[in-house]
Protein backbone atom coordinates (compact mmCIF):
# COMPACT_ATOMS: atom_id res chain seq x y z
CA UNK A 1 0.00 0.00 0.00
CA UNK A 2 1.36 3.38 -1.04
CA UNK A 3 0.19 6.69 0.39
CA UNK A 4 1.47 10.03 -0.83
CA UNK A 5 0.16 13.32 0.43
CA UNK A 6 2.65 16.01 -0.44
CA UNK A 7 2.78 19.76 -0.87
CA UNK A 8 5.75 21.69 -2.21
CA UNK A 9 6.14 25.22 -3.46
CA UNK A 10 7.84 25.12 -6.84
CA UNK A 11 9.04 28.15 -8.77
CA UNK A 12 5.81 28.76 -10.67
CA UNK A 13 3.14 26.77 -8.85
CA UNK A 14 2.39 24.64 -5.81
CA UNK A 15 2.69 20.89 -6.25
CA UNK A 16 -0.09 19.42 -4.13
CA UNK A 17 -1.09 15.78 -4.52
CA UNK A 18 -2.90 13.14 -2.52
CA UNK A 19 -2.41 9.76 -4.19
CA UNK A 20 -2.68 6.21 -2.95
CA UNK A 21 -2.03 2.91 -4.69
CA UNK A 22 -2.79 -0.69 -3.75
CA UNK A 23 -0.33 -3.57 -3.36
CA UNK A 24 1.30 -4.77 -6.59
CA UNK A 25 -0.31 -1.83 -8.40
CA UNK A 26 1.45 0.11 -11.13
CA UNK A 27 0.54 3.76 -11.06
CA UNK A 28 1.19 5.82 -14.17
CA UNK A 29 1.82 9.55 -13.88
CA UNK A 30 1.11 11.58 -16.97
CA UNK A 31 0.98 15.25 -17.80
CA UNK A 32 2.69 17.92 -19.81
CA UNK A 33 6.35 18.83 -19.26
CA UNK A 34 6.84 20.89 -16.13
CA UNK A 35 3.65 19.68 -14.43
CA UNK A 36 5.57 18.30 -11.43
CA UNK A 37 5.82 14.57 -12.23
CA UNK A 38 9.61 14.21 -11.76
CA UNK A 39 9.53 16.42 -8.66
CA UNK A 40 6.90 14.09 -7.19
CA UNK A 41 9.20 11.09 -7.80
CA UNK A 42 12.08 13.00 -6.16
CA UNK A 43 9.90 13.72 -3.12
CA UNK A 44 9.11 10.01 -2.79
CA UNK A 45 12.76 8.99 -3.30
CA UNK A 46 13.92 11.55 -0.73
CA UNK A 47 16.19 13.52 -3.05
CA UNK A 48 13.81 16.46 -2.58
CA UNK A 49 11.81 17.35 0.53
CA UNK A 50 8.13 18.33 0.63
CA UNK A 51 7.07 21.42 2.55
CA UNK A 52 4.29 19.40 4.14
CA UNK A 53 2.79 15.94 3.86
CA UNK A 54 2.99 12.22 4.51
CA UNK A 55 4.68 9.50 2.43
CA UNK A 56 4.18 5.86 3.38
CA UNK A 57 5.19 2.67 1.57
CA UNK A 58 3.89 -0.66 2.89
CA UNK A 59 2.94 0.99 6.17
CA UNK A 60 6.48 2.36 6.62
CA UNK A 61 6.63 6.13 7.04
CA UNK A 62 9.29 7.71 4.83
CA UNK A 63 8.23 11.28 5.43
CA UNK A 64 5.82 12.82 7.90
CA UNK A 65 5.94 16.57 8.45
CA UNK A 66 3.75 16.34 11.57
CA UNK A 67 5.99 13.78 13.27
CA UNK A 68 9.22 15.28 11.92
CA UNK A 69 10.12 12.06 10.07
CA UNK A 70 12.28 12.42 6.96
CA UNK A 71 14.27 9.32 6.04
CA UNK A 72 17.34 9.99 3.86
CA UNK A 73 17.22 8.42 0.37
CA UNK A 74 19.61 5.61 1.38
CA UNK A 75 17.16 4.37 4.02
CA UNK A 76 14.01 4.44 1.87
CA UNK A 77 14.58 1.19 -0.02
CA UNK A 78 13.34 2.65 -3.30
CA UNK A 79 14.56 1.71 -6.77
CA UNK A 80 14.73 4.72 -9.05
CA UNK A 81 15.31 4.58 -12.81
CA UNK A 82 16.20 8.08 -13.95
CA UNK A 83 15.09 9.60 -17.24
CA UNK A 84 18.67 9.73 -18.50
CA UNK A 85 19.57 6.52 -16.66
CA UNK A 86 22.21 8.08 -14.35
CA UNK A 87 24.57 5.15 -14.82
CA UNK A 88 27.94 5.64 -13.19
CA UNK A 89 30.17 6.27 -16.22
CA UNK A 90 33.40 5.24 -14.51
CA UNK A 91 32.08 1.80 -13.60
CA UNK A 92 31.38 -1.31 -15.64
CA UNK A 93 27.88 -2.66 -16.24
CA UNK A 94 28.52 -5.28 -13.54
CA UNK A 95 29.72 -2.71 -10.99
CA UNK A 96 26.73 -0.46 -11.72
CA UNK A 97 24.30 -3.28 -10.97
CA UNK A 98 26.34 -4.40 -7.94
CA UNK A 99 26.55 -0.86 -6.49
CA UNK A 100 23.40 -1.05 -4.36
CA UNK A 101 24.24 -4.57 -3.17
CA UNK A 102 27.73 -3.55 -2.06
CA UNK A 103 26.34 -0.64 -0.06
CA UNK A 104 24.15 -3.25 1.67
CA UNK A 105 27.31 -5.24 2.46
CA UNK A 106 25.99 -8.44 0.91
CA UNK A 107 28.44 -11.34 0.69
CA UNK A 108 30.41 -11.39 -2.57
CA UNK A 109 28.91 -14.67 -3.82
CA UNK A 110 25.36 -13.40 -3.30
CA UNK A 111 26.19 -10.17 -5.09
CA UNK A 112 27.63 -12.10 -8.01
CA UNK A 113 24.58 -14.36 -8.28
CA UNK A 114 22.10 -11.48 -8.02
CA UNK A 115 23.95 -9.30 -10.56
CA UNK A 116 24.26 -12.13 -13.08
CA UNK A 117 20.57 -12.99 -12.65
CA UNK A 118 19.54 -9.40 -13.29
CA UNK A 119 21.84 -9.06 -16.30
CA UNK A 120 20.52 -12.36 -17.64
CA UNK A 121 16.97 -11.07 -17.32
CA UNK A 122 17.68 -7.92 -19.32
CA UNK A 123 19.85 -9.87 -21.79
CA UNK A 124 23.10 -8.03 -21.10
CA UNK A 125 25.16 -10.72 -19.38
CA UNK A 126 27.74 -10.59 -22.16
CA UNK A 127 28.25 -6.85 -21.65
CA UNK A 128 28.97 -7.11 -17.91
CA UNK A 129 32.57 -5.89 -18.32
CA UNK A 130 31.72 -3.00 -20.65
CA UNK A 131 31.95 0.58 -19.40
CA UNK A 132 28.48 2.01 -18.79
CA UNK A 133 29.39 5.11 -20.80
CA UNK A 134 29.99 2.97 -23.91
CA UNK A 135 26.48 1.48 -24.11
CA UNK A 136 23.63 2.39 -26.46
CA UNK A 137 20.49 4.10 -25.13
CA UNK A 138 18.47 0.87 -24.94
CA UNK A 139 21.31 -0.97 -23.20
CA UNK A 140 21.71 1.85 -20.69
CA UNK A 141 18.01 1.75 -19.95
CA UNK A 142 18.15 -1.98 -19.29
CA UNK A 143 21.21 -1.65 -17.02
CA UNK A 144 19.47 1.15 -15.10
CA UNK A 145 16.46 -1.13 -14.66
CA UNK A 146 18.64 -4.07 -13.58
CA UNK A 147 20.47 -1.83 -11.09
CA UNK A 148 17.21 -0.58 -9.56
CA UNK A 149 15.68 -4.07 -9.39
CA UNK A 150 18.82 -5.76 -7.98
CA UNK A 151 18.25 -4.19 -4.55
CA UNK A 152 14.73 -5.72 -4.47
CA UNK A 153 13.13 -2.38 -3.62
CA UNK A 154 9.82 -1.99 -1.83
CA UNK A 155 8.83 0.57 -4.49
CA UNK A 156 10.08 1.17 -8.02
CA UNK A 157 10.10 4.65 -9.57
CA UNK A 158 10.59 5.04 -13.31
CA UNK A 159 10.93 8.47 -14.87
CA UNK A 160 10.01 8.36 -18.55
CA UNK A 161 11.80 5.04 -19.03
CA UNK A 162 10.90 4.79 -22.71
CA UNK A 163 11.03 8.38 -23.92
CA UNK A 164 14.64 8.40 -25.17
CA UNK A 165 14.35 5.11 -27.07
CA UNK A 166 13.41 4.42 -30.68
CA UNK A 167 10.10 2.63 -31.36
CA UNK A 168 11.52 -0.90 -31.59
CA UNK A 169 13.79 -0.60 -28.54
CA UNK A 170 10.99 1.10 -26.63
CA UNK A 171 8.66 -1.86 -27.32
CA UNK A 172 11.32 -4.35 -26.21
CA UNK A 173 12.11 -2.47 -22.99
CA UNK A 174 8.40 -1.98 -22.29
CA UNK A 175 7.74 -5.72 -22.57
CA UNK A 176 10.76 -6.50 -20.41
CA UNK A 177 9.54 -4.00 -17.83
CA UNK A 178 5.96 -5.27 -17.80
CA UNK A 179 7.08 -8.88 -17.43
CA UNK A 180 9.31 -8.05 -14.48
CA UNK A 181 6.84 -5.79 -12.67
CA UNK A 182 4.12 -8.41 -12.92
CA UNK A 183 6.44 -11.31 -12.03
CA UNK A 184 7.84 -9.68 -8.88
CA UNK A 185 4.68 -7.81 -7.95
CA UNK A 186 6.68 -4.67 -7.14
CA UNK A 187 4.55 -1.58 -6.56
CA UNK A 188 5.59 0.89 -9.17
CA UNK A 189 5.15 4.51 -10.18
CA UNK A 190 5.96 5.25 -13.82
CA UNK A 191 6.08 8.63 -15.50
CA UNK A 192 5.02 8.21 -19.12
CA UNK A 193 4.01 10.37 -22.05
CA UNK A 194 2.71 7.78 -24.45
CA UNK A 195 -0.93 6.69 -23.76
CA UNK A 196 -0.23 3.26 -25.34
CA UNK A 197 2.63 2.68 -22.87
CA UNK A 198 0.31 3.79 -20.06
CA UNK A 199 -2.35 1.27 -21.07
CA UNK A 200 0.25 -1.52 -21.43
CA UNK A 201 2.11 -0.90 -18.17
CA UNK A 202 -0.31 0.79 -15.80
CA UNK A 203 -3.11 -0.44 -13.56
CA UNK A 204 -4.11 3.10 -12.77
CA UNK A 205 -3.15 6.51 -14.09
CA UNK A 206 -3.10 10.06 -12.76
CA UNK A 207 -2.85 13.11 -14.98
CA UNK A 208 -0.98 16.04 -13.41
CA UNK A 209 -1.40 19.63 -14.48
CA UNK A 210 0.40 22.51 -12.75
CA UNK A 211 1.06 20.33 -9.73
CA UNK A 212 -2.52 19.11 -9.27
CA UNK A 213 -4.06 15.73 -10.13
CA UNK A 214 -6.71 16.65 -12.67
CA UNK A 215 -7.73 13.15 -13.78
CA UNK A 216 -7.40 9.71 -12.27
CA UNK A 217 -8.67 6.28 -13.28
CA UNK A 218 -7.81 3.26 -15.41
CA UNK A 219 -5.40 4.25 -18.20
CA UNK A 220 -7.75 2.89 -20.88
CA UNK A 221 -10.65 4.97 -19.58
CA UNK A 222 -8.55 8.09 -19.22
CA UNK A 223 -7.56 8.10 -22.87
CA UNK A 224 -11.18 8.97 -23.66
CA UNK A 225 -11.36 11.72 -21.04
CA UNK A 226 -8.22 13.78 -21.12
CA UNK A 227 -8.21 17.01 -23.08
CA UNK A 228 -6.56 17.03 -26.48
CA UNK A 229 -2.90 18.03 -26.27
CA UNK A 230 -2.87 17.85 -22.46
CA UNK A 231 -0.21 15.13 -22.47
CA UNK A 232 1.89 16.16 -25.37
CA UNK A 233 2.21 19.94 -25.39
CA UNK A 234 5.06 21.13 -23.19
CA UNK A 235 4.35 24.03 -20.87
CA UNK A 236 6.52 27.09 -21.04
CA UNK A 237 6.98 27.19 -17.30
CA UNK A 238 9.13 24.54 -15.70
CA UNK A 239 8.56 23.00 -12.28
Amino acid at each position, binding site marked *: MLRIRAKKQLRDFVLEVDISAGERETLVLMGSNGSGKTTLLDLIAGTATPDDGLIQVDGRTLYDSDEGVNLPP*EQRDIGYVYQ*HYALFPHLTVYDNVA*FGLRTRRMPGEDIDRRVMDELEFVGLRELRNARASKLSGGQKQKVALARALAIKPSLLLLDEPLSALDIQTSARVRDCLRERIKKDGIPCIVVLHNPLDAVTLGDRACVLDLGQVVLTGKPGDLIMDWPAGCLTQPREIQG
Partner: protein
Amino acid sequence: MSEKRLAAGAARNWHGAVFASFAVILVYLLVLLFTGLPVLSLFLKISPEAFLSSLGDPVVVEALKLSLITSAASALIVVIVGTPVAYVNARGHYPGKELVDTVIDLPVVLPPAVAGLALLMAFGRRGVLGQYLDVFGVTIAFTTVAVVMAQVFVASPFYIRQARTSFEDVDRSLEHAARTLGASRLRTFFMVTAPVALNGLISGAVLSWARALGEFGATIMFAGNFTGRTRTMPLAIYTAMQGDLDASLALAVIMVIASFAVIAAVKVLSRRRLIVAPD
Protein backbone atom coordinates in the same frame (compact mmCIF):
# COMPACT_ATOMS: atom_id res chain seq x y z
CA MET B 1 29.03 33.03 -66.67
CA SER B 2 29.60 29.85 -64.72
CA GLU B 3 33.27 29.85 -65.75
CA LYS B 4 33.60 33.37 -64.35
CA ARG B 5 31.99 32.20 -61.10
CA LEU B 6 34.36 29.25 -60.89
CA ALA B 7 37.34 31.54 -61.52
CA ALA B 8 36.13 33.97 -58.85
CA GLY B 9 35.61 31.05 -56.43
CA ALA B 10 39.10 29.71 -57.14
CA ALA B 11 40.59 33.17 -56.56
CA ARG B 12 38.73 33.45 -53.26
CA ASN B 13 40.00 30.01 -52.19
CA TRP B 14 43.55 30.99 -53.17
CA HIS B 15 43.31 34.24 -51.19
CA GLY B 16 41.94 32.28 -48.24
CA ALA B 17 44.82 29.78 -48.38
CA VAL B 18 47.40 32.59 -48.51
CA PHE B 19 45.76 34.37 -45.60
CA ALA B 20 45.64 31.14 -43.56
CA SER B 21 49.32 30.42 -44.28
CA PHE B 22 50.26 33.97 -43.32
CA ALA B 23 48.29 33.69 -40.07
CA VAL B 24 49.99 30.39 -39.20
CA ILE B 25 53.46 31.85 -39.89
CA LEU B 26 52.61 34.86 -37.73
CA VAL B 27 51.54 32.57 -34.85
CA TYR B 28 54.80 30.59 -35.18
CA LEU B 29 56.88 33.79 -35.18
CA LEU B 30 55.09 35.28 -32.16
CA VAL B 31 55.34 32.09 -30.12
CA LEU B 32 58.98 31.49 -31.04
CA LEU B 33 60.07 35.07 -30.48
CA PHE B 34 58.33 35.88 -27.21
CA THR B 35 58.21 32.51 -25.45
CA GLY B 36 60.21 29.97 -27.41
CA LEU B 37 63.40 31.98 -27.84
CA PRO B 38 63.97 32.94 -24.17
CA VAL B 39 63.19 29.40 -23.03
CA LEU B 40 65.39 27.90 -25.74
CA SER B 41 68.20 30.27 -24.74
CA LEU B 42 68.35 28.59 -21.32
CA PHE B 43 69.16 25.29 -23.04
CA LEU B 44 71.61 26.90 -25.50
CA LYS B 45 73.56 28.74 -22.78
CA ILE B 46 74.47 25.65 -20.81
CA SER B 47 76.44 22.70 -22.19
CA PRO B 48 75.24 19.18 -21.38
CA GLU B 49 78.45 18.58 -19.40
CA ALA B 50 77.97 21.73 -17.32
CA PHE B 51 74.32 20.81 -16.78
CA LEU B 52 75.21 17.31 -15.58
CA SER B 53 78.01 18.52 -13.33
CA SER B 54 75.72 21.21 -11.84
CA LEU B 55 73.25 18.48 -10.90
CA GLY B 56 75.86 17.29 -8.38
CA ASP B 57 76.38 20.79 -6.94
CA PRO B 58 75.21 20.80 -3.28
CA VAL B 59 73.45 24.16 -3.84
CA VAL B 60 71.40 22.67 -6.68
CA VAL B 61 70.73 19.41 -4.83
CA GLU B 62 69.61 21.21 -1.65
CA ALA B 63 67.31 23.54 -3.57
CA LEU B 64 65.89 20.70 -5.64
CA LYS B 65 65.25 18.56 -2.57
CA LEU B 66 63.64 21.41 -0.62
CA SER B 67 61.49 22.44 -3.57
CA LEU B 68 60.21 18.92 -4.18
CA ILE B 69 59.43 18.32 -0.50
CA THR B 70 57.74 21.69 0.14
CA SER B 71 55.77 21.76 -3.13
CA ALA B 72 54.56 18.17 -2.60
CA ALA B 73 53.52 19.02 0.97
CA SER B 74 51.76 22.18 -0.25
CA ALA B 75 49.90 20.31 -3.00
CA LEU B 76 48.83 17.66 -0.50
CA ILE B 77 47.55 20.27 1.96
CA VAL B 78 45.76 22.14 -0.83
CA VAL B 79 44.04 18.92 -2.00
CA ILE B 80 43.05 17.77 1.51
CA VAL B 81 41.71 21.16 2.62
CA GLY B 82 40.62 22.45 -0.78
CA THR B 83 38.52 19.47 -1.86
CA PRO B 84 35.76 19.85 0.75
CA VAL B 85 35.81 23.64 0.25
CA ALA B 86 35.41 23.20 -3.52
CA TYR B 87 32.62 20.65 -3.10
CA VAL B 88 30.65 22.80 -0.65
CA ASN B 89 30.98 25.79 -2.99
CA ALA B 90 29.96 23.70 -6.00
CA ARG B 91 26.88 22.19 -4.41
CA GLY B 92 25.87 24.38 -1.50
CA HIS B 93 24.22 27.76 -1.10
CA TYR B 94 25.05 29.78 1.99
CA PRO B 95 25.17 33.44 2.98
CA GLY B 96 28.39 35.12 1.91
CA LYS B 97 29.30 32.45 -0.66
CA GLU B 98 30.31 35.09 -3.23
CA LEU B 99 32.59 36.76 -0.69
CA VAL B 100 34.21 33.42 0.20
CA ASP B 101 34.73 32.72 -3.52
CA THR B 102 36.35 36.11 -3.99
CA VAL B 103 38.70 35.57 -1.04
CA ILE B 104 39.65 32.13 -2.41
CA ASP B 105 40.49 33.66 -5.80
CA LEU B 106 42.33 36.68 -4.34
CA PRO B 107 45.87 35.17 -4.39
CA VAL B 108 45.58 34.68 -8.19
CA VAL B 109 45.59 38.43 -8.80
CA LEU B 110 47.48 39.52 -5.69
CA PRO B 111 51.16 40.33 -6.38
CA PRO B 112 53.26 37.59 -4.68
CA ALA B 113 55.22 40.22 -2.75
CA VAL B 114 51.95 41.48 -1.27
CA ALA B 115 51.01 37.91 -0.40
CA GLY B 116 54.34 37.46 1.39
CA LEU B 117 53.95 40.72 3.27
CA ALA B 118 50.38 39.77 4.25
CA LEU B 119 51.57 36.41 5.61
CA LEU B 120 54.36 38.16 7.51
CA MET B 121 51.88 40.62 9.04
CA ALA B 122 49.66 37.73 10.10
CA PHE B 123 52.14 35.06 11.20
CA GLY B 124 55.41 36.99 11.69
CA ARG B 125 56.81 37.36 15.23
CA ARG B 126 55.00 40.68 15.59
CA GLY B 127 52.09 39.64 13.38
CA VAL B 128 48.41 39.69 14.26
CA LEU B 129 48.44 35.99 15.17
CA GLY B 130 52.20 35.42 15.22
CA GLN B 131 52.72 37.51 18.39
CA TYR B 132 50.53 35.07 20.35
CA LEU B 133 52.22 32.04 18.80
CA ASP B 134 55.56 33.56 19.75
CA VAL B 135 54.49 33.54 23.42
CA PHE B 136 54.27 29.72 23.18
CA GLY B 137 57.64 29.57 21.45
CA VAL B 138 56.12 28.85 18.03
CA THR B 139 57.90 30.68 15.22
CA ILE B 140 56.66 30.34 11.67
CA ALA B 141 58.30 33.12 9.65
CA PHE B 142 61.66 32.31 8.04
CA THR B 143 61.24 28.56 8.49
CA THR B 144 60.43 25.70 6.08
CA VAL B 145 56.85 25.83 7.40
CA ALA B 146 56.68 29.42 6.13
CA VAL B 147 57.76 28.20 2.68
CA VAL B 148 54.90 25.71 2.66
CA MET B 149 52.44 28.32 3.92
CA ALA B 150 53.48 30.79 1.21
CA GLN B 151 53.11 28.07 -1.44
CA VAL B 152 49.70 26.99 -0.13
CA PHE B 153 48.56 30.62 -0.08
CA VAL B 154 49.40 31.30 -3.73
CA ALA B 155 48.68 27.82 -5.15
CA SER B 156 45.36 26.95 -3.49
CA PRO B 157 43.07 28.92 -5.86
CA PHE B 158 44.38 26.95 -8.84
CA TYR B 159 43.15 23.69 -7.32
CA ILE B 160 39.98 24.98 -5.67
CA ARG B 161 38.70 26.68 -8.83
CA GLN B 162 39.37 23.64 -10.99
CA ALA B 163 37.90 21.24 -8.41
CA ARG B 164 34.79 23.35 -8.02
CA THR B 165 34.17 23.38 -11.78
CA SER B 166 34.76 19.64 -11.96
CA PHE B 167 32.26 18.98 -9.15
CA GLU B 168 29.71 21.28 -10.79
CA ASP B 169 30.07 19.24 -13.99
CA VAL B 170 29.10 16.01 -12.21
CA ASP B 171 25.47 15.27 -13.05
CA ARG B 172 23.47 15.51 -9.81
CA SER B 173 21.30 12.58 -10.83
CA LEU B 174 24.40 10.35 -10.45
CA GLU B 175 24.68 11.39 -6.81
CA HIS B 176 20.94 10.99 -6.29
CA ALA B 177 21.03 7.53 -7.90
CA ALA B 178 23.85 6.49 -5.56
CA ARG B 179 21.85 7.70 -2.55
CA THR B 180 18.71 5.79 -3.58
CA LEU B 181 20.91 2.70 -3.98
CA GLY B 182 21.84 2.95 -0.32
CA ALA B 183 25.03 5.01 -0.30
CA SER B 184 25.50 7.65 2.40
CA ARG B 185 26.59 11.17 1.43
CA LEU B 186 30.22 10.35 2.22
CA ARG B 187 30.20 7.06 0.31
CA THR B 188 28.48 8.80 -2.62
CA PHE B 189 31.25 11.38 -2.66
CA PHE B 190 34.08 8.84 -2.62
CA MET B 191 32.45 6.24 -4.88
CA VAL B 192 30.73 8.47 -7.45
CA THR B 193 31.39 12.22 -7.30
CA ALA B 194 35.17 12.17 -6.83
CA PRO B 195 35.86 9.40 -9.40
CA VAL B 196 33.69 11.14 -12.04
CA ALA B 197 35.44 14.46 -11.32
CA LEU B 198 38.86 12.80 -10.98
CA ASN B 199 40.48 14.09 -14.18
CA GLY B 200 39.64 17.68 -13.24
CA LEU B 201 40.84 17.14 -9.68
CA ILE B 202 44.15 15.72 -10.85
CA SER B 203 44.76 18.48 -13.37
CA GLY B 204 43.92 21.07 -10.67
CA ALA B 205 46.32 19.40 -8.24
CA VAL B 206 49.08 19.29 -10.88
CA LEU B 207 48.59 22.99 -11.70
CA SER B 208 48.59 23.83 -8.03
CA TRP B 209 51.79 21.84 -7.46
CA ALA B 210 53.43 23.61 -10.41
CA ARG B 211 52.48 27.00 -9.00
CA ALA B 212 53.91 25.99 -5.61
CA LEU B 213 57.11 24.77 -7.28
CA GLY B 214 57.60 28.12 -9.01
CA GLU B 215 56.70 30.30 -6.01
CA PHE B 216 59.24 33.10 -5.42
CA GLY B 217 57.89 36.45 -4.23
CA ALA B 218 55.82 35.38 -1.23
CA THR B 219 58.47 32.88 -0.16
CA ILE B 220 61.37 35.38 -0.11
CA MET B 221 59.22 37.90 1.81
CA PHE B 222 57.79 35.48 4.39
CA ALA B 223 60.38 32.71 4.60
CA GLY B 224 63.61 34.44 3.60
CA ASN B 225 66.44 32.88 1.62
CA PHE B 226 68.33 30.37 3.79
CA THR B 227 70.18 27.41 2.25
CA GLY B 228 68.60 24.05 3.04
CA ARG B 229 65.78 25.66 4.99
CA THR B 230 63.91 28.11 2.79
CA ARG B 231 65.98 28.42 -0.40
CA THR B 232 63.76 26.66 -2.95
CA MET B 233 64.67 26.37 -6.64
CA PRO B 234 63.38 29.80 -7.75
CA LEU B 235 65.25 31.44 -4.87
CA ALA B 236 68.36 29.40 -5.63
CA ILE B 237 68.20 30.49 -9.29
CA TYR B 238 68.04 34.12 -8.18
CA THR B 239 70.92 33.66 -5.70
CA ALA B 240 73.15 31.55 -7.97
CA MET B 241 72.74 33.98 -10.84
CA GLN B 242 74.90 36.47 -8.92
CA GLY B 243 77.85 34.02 -8.76
CA ASP B 244 77.49 30.61 -10.42
CA LEU B 245 75.56 31.06 -13.67
CA ASP B 246 75.80 27.35 -14.59
CA ALA B 247 74.06 26.30 -11.37
CA SER B 248 71.41 28.93 -12.02
CA LEU B 249 70.90 27.69 -15.61
CA ALA B 250 70.80 24.04 -14.53
CA LEU B 251 68.03 24.79 -12.04
CA ALA B 252 66.18 26.88 -14.61
CA VAL B 253 66.35 24.06 -17.18
CA ILE B 254 64.96 21.59 -14.63
CA MET B 255 62.10 23.97 -13.92
CA VAL B 256 61.35 24.44 -17.63
CA ILE B 257 61.23 20.65 -18.13
CA ALA B 258 58.97 20.27 -15.08
CA SER B 259 56.67 23.06 -16.30
CA PHE B 260 56.46 21.56 -19.78
CA ALA B 261 55.61 18.15 -18.31
CA VAL B 262 52.90 19.72 -16.14
CA ILE B 263 51.23 21.49 -19.07
CA ALA B 264 51.38 18.32 -21.18
CA ALA B 265 49.87 16.28 -18.33
CA VAL B 266 47.05 18.78 -17.82
CA LYS B 267 46.29 18.82 -21.55
CA VAL B 268 46.14 15.03 -21.73
CA LEU B 269 43.93 14.83 -18.64
CA SER B 270 41.53 17.52 -19.84
CA ARG B 271 41.05 15.62 -23.12
CA ARG B 272 40.15 12.44 -21.26
CA ARG B 273 37.13 13.91 -19.48
CA LEU B 274 34.34 11.50 -18.69
CA ILE B 275 31.04 12.63 -20.12
CA VAL B 276 27.67 11.36 -18.98
CA ALA B 277 25.67 11.37 -22.17
CA PRO B 278 21.97 10.55 -22.15
CA ASP B 279 22.41 8.29 -25.16
